[in-house]
């Protein structure tokens, strides 16, 4: 339904406001780069781990000699399930798991991570044909495989990086999800409860 007159009306109302020249936008990168943050990748990883754990997330670092498949199989055994839904991109391409379940009926969803933010403990996941959104959302447990070198210091640095990544924003993907720990609510007498809609456990494996 189109209310043509409404558009005209709203714009007319707004045009009667006082006008000035649009101001020129300054770059935000340097101004909001907090000095307290670690700048080397090891420091960023430590910050990320600390902050992600603070929001009830779980973090494991992949041991040098172990393969990702072995590590993930350990989890599957421990959780006693084969109902897994997973992506086949990046480090997950070589994953040897036989079953691939629909996310709606899977117990575990396994995804990659495109970026992570150290000072908030946030995973950033982009959607595309090989990276469906529901894998990180419907199953009660989400395992996320994070490459250490994709951790950035803070959210401002992230947006600068996203800007570079997309060069021109016309190619922006349909959904960028920021995930900071498991799903939570405090709606019942302010008690923290996990997993009310999204996953109740989020396990990050850093490689």
């Amino acid at each position, binding site marked *: *339904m189109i209310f043509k007159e409404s558009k005209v009306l*709203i714009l007319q109302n707004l045009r009667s406001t006082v006008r000035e020249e649009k101001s020129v936008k300054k770059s935000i990168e340097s101004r909001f780069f907090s000095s307290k943050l670690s700048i080397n990748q090891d420091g960023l990883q430590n910050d990320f781990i600390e902050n992600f754990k603070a929001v009830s997330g779980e973090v494991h670092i992949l041991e040098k000699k172990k393969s990702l498949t072995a590590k993930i199989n350990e989890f599957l055994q421990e959780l006693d399930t084969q109902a897994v839904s997973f992506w086949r991109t990046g480090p997950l391409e070589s994953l040897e798991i036989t079953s691939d379940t629909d996310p709606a009926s899977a117990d575990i969803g396994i995804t990659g991570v495109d970026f992570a933010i150290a000072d908030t403990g946030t995973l950033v996941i982009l959607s595309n044909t090989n990276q469906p959104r529901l894998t990180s959302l419907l199953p009660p447990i989400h395992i996320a495989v994070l490459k250490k070198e994709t951790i950035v210091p803070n959210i401002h640095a992230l*947006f600068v990086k996203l800007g570079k990544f997309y060069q021109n924003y016309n190619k922006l993907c349909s959904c960028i*999800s920021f995930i*900071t720990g498991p799903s939570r609510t405090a*709606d019942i007498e*302010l*008690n923290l409860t996990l997993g009310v809609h999204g996953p109740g456990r989020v396990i990050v494996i850093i490689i």
Partner: protein
Amino acid sequence: MITKRIDFKKNSVQALANPKLKKALVNFTDRSRASRKKAVSEISEWEDLRLEARRIKEQVIKDLDSYLLELEESITRVGGKVHWAKDAEEASKIVATIAKENNVRNVVKSKSMATEEIELNKYLISRGINTVETDLGEYIVQLCNDHPFHIITPAIHKTKEDISKLFSEKFGVPEYEEPQKLANIARKELREKFLSADMGISGVNFAVAETGTIAIVENEGNARLATTYPDIHVAIMGIEKIVPKFEQLSIFLSLLARSATGQKSSTYVSLITGPRREGERDGPRQFHLVFLDNGRSQIAKSEETKESLYCIRCGACINICPIYRQVGGHSYGWVYSGPIGAVITPQLNDLNKTADLPFVSSLCGACRDVCPVKIDFPHVFLSLRQKIIEQAREKPNPREFMEKIAFWIWGTVFSKPFYYNFMGKIMFFLQCFYRKDNELQRLPYPFSKWTRDKNFPAFSKNPFRERWKKKYQVKGKAPR
């Protein structure tokens, strides 16, 4: 839309009489104040972020028309559709029409103040479309046919006992008291709703003009579900929600999470740019964005109060407000409460019916100090008050005359030490009928309103001025 005059006094007296509510409010405001404070102190650039955010918002509201057109263009470019609604009625009609055209039967909603404002649920349900709130707090509120109590935590006025009884009644489960168990029940009930929904409705926290991206911030994941699973996604935004540039989101996202709940980041932020792309396996196939004016373009015109539109709905002003802490959300009579409610409700509705609200502030300015976009609340309150008084002046008003006399007496007594002393003495004798435990309780009319809710300290036989004089008598003249 408000149809009846909001009687703040009556509402607040009711709220004050409820001790359970009082406890919940104190507990809630204490905790949210403390966690916000901590989160804010963690980053050194907090003040810079606030200044920058305010600067951006000033620019947006000033050029809102061109930003709206830019956003419409961007949304269209990425395959979405924009609808313009001048008021609540139109916005609801637009949503209902989209639903009808696509044979939608089941709608899942994530939390959105704009949809509360236009009472979208009622509209859709009355047209035979099942509409379910999916934010846990909102869901509880909807199940009891109530209204949200707070813009961030809608159900703080319900105890676990209330909720466990409610769930047991509605779903035939035992009366669990553990919040985790209650949440699990809600998860199960609502998951079914998500999987059978044909349309998801969400609000918008920020909309980026240059890219057509909308940002949705939440903790539960219900907004992600509502905007991913159903085939149609309809988002409704107040026209003031625009952010010009994509990277400016980082500023607003930092401010919002820390101000609202004291988190470094909310659990989920979804940046959605149009419907699913070719080849993608999930995400909505249709994306609609409704621009809701509903009085906002009028506010943008007012030099004095347009900053009310800078608000990012974090709720910090509500949590810090000493009045909200006492009287709670429902006293404000509409969807927005606390200081932001007291300034926005009268501007989005008939001022005559909402004239109580701009007076619901002690002008202490605590709200201004916490507001991430630095809204100068005392200033806005005063200019709204001025408007109300000016409108009232147009009709003769016996009360105004009485007030004039009262203030004249007050002014005379307080400006001359002699009168002041004399009145003090008279009062000391007059008060003997009302005095109890050195306090005045239940004064007669017209002073009875003062002592209705609190006691007045009694006039002393030996007032401070006398004691001061006596103390210095020995040394000569008392300093004034």
